[in-house]
């Protein structure tokens, strides 16, 4: 375990170096969130009674979504890993005295966490300065906050396990681009990136909530806003655990099978 933690730390520190890029990204994120809320505001002013979630919960959702974007944005793949499988450079990685799945998983977690940490705080701060109900209300109970943190960790696991599953698939496919394109689009639609899950039509919403994509940003963002509360929290987090376990197991098996078939020519 210690070597995976070391690997994780190494990547985390490398990621934290790009402070200027993070700062430039910030204003983009802030404008993006603002425009998003302005649309919902227009709908809200006309038909507040047709809103499936409270405006404050929605505002929290949008601001946190922008703040933690890099934690769960599925389109931020790691091209290096896929490239190494395709070119065969993965052979170098295999010579290391560590399990490939664990090593890459630690790396994925660290990359996402470092990008997310740099960007989150300022967006949250700015979001909190905006008056209610459009701003991010920070007054939540410690219990809810704890659950939010726990579910964020679970989300990160599900997201990374999903990307690992796709990387593992690369061992079996010649070109993973098609799968990546499709899964990114599905995640946008079913994960609550286009519109939060409660805004989806009923049938689609049920499917989305049960899918692995529904176990990503959907859960922590809505726990924070108070949109998922009480027993629903347990259910949603149970699904997160379920998908994390299933995806990690599937990715591990798939990668193992792929590696067993891999023949590395010397030279």
């Amino acid at each position, binding site marked *: 375990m210690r070597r995976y933690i070391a690997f994780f730390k190494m990547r985390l520190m490398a990621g934290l170096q790009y402070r200027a890029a993070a700062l430039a990204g910030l204003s983009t994120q802030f404008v993006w969130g603002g425009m998003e809320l302005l649309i919902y505001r227009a709908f809200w002013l006309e038909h507040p009674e047709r809103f499936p979630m409270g405006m404050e919960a929605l505002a929290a959702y949008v601001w946190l979504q922008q703040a933690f974007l890099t934690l769960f944005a599925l389109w931020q793949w790691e091209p290096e890993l896929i490239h190494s499988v395709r070119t065969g450079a993965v052979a170098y990685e295999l010579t290391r005295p560590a399990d490939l799945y664990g090593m890459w998983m630690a790396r994925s977690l660290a990359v996402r966490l470092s990008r997310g940490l740099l960007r989150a705080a300022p967006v949250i701060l700015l979001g909190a300065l905006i008056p209610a109900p459009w701003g991010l209300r920070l007054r939540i109970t410690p219990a809810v906050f704890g659950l939010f943190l726990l579910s964020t960790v679970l989300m990160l696991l599900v997201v990374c396990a999903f990307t690992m599953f796709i990387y593992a698939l690369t061992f079996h496919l010649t070109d993973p681009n098609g799968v990546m394109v499709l899964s*990114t689009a599905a995640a946008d639609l079913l994960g609550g990136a286009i519109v939060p899950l409660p*805004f989806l039509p009923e049938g689609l919403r049920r499917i989305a909530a049960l899918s692995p994509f529904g176990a990503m940003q959907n859960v922590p963002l809505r726990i924070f806003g108070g949109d998922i509360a009480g027993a629903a929290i347990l259910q949603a987090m149970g699904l997160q655990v379920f998908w994390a376990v299933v995806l990690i197991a599937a990715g591990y098996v798939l990668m193992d099978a792929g590696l067993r078939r891999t023949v590395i020519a010397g030279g």
Partner: protein
Amino acid sequence: MRLYFRFLSIHLKSAMTYKASFFLSCVGHLLVTLNTFLGVTFLLDRFGAIGGYTLPQLALCFSVILSATSLAECFARGFDAFPKILREAQFDRMLVRPRSLTMQILCQDLKPTMLARLLQAVVMLAWSVRSGAVNWTPAKAAVLALMILCGACVFFGLFLIYAALCFFTLEGLEVMNIFTDGAREYGKYPFGVYGKGVLYVLTFLVPLALVQYWPLQYLLDRGPAWYGLLPLAALGFLVPCTLVWRMGVRHYCSTGS
């Protein structure tokens, strides 16, 4: 001009060599904007209308912005990829050639896969025409064409500024995304929906509303006929863009390697 068309055909041929990859990128680009429109559909389904606009009217509005961005992204790709051109010192080579810089950069790259989005725009437009969102007259059809073409020019101007800023920063500024990718994303609703502040910024500062919101009012019979001519005024935006670009080129000094 003949030279430009030669380059176009070369880029097209090279893109078509890898058919599967070409097709996949098309699908990828298409899914992004298709999802965007699905989001609009879901919200309209729930709320009925926004700011008095119905879904077919929004489809018309989005198809204008979508066509404009995909045209600009396809043909002005060289400016979009300018940080790379600059970093790899290809710009030095361009400076010594006896052709205009703009022309050379335009010839540098083409992104035909973006045209897949044009297909979506055409389908949305056809649907909106059929559902009778607008009482069409020849003048209105001409205004629509003007909106798309001038819109593409405004986006081209934005790419020009983006490229010019690279002379000072050497890397692409993510902030510019607000006006390029962002505008495509927000353009799904008429800019008036976002409130007066946003509308004024997009009218006087970056004139995207001049090719979308104001002429749309004319198309939907909500505003006077001269609103239909405003896309032409948006072309004025190209003046400051060109100035910034010139300034950038003058500021450039090669590493000489």
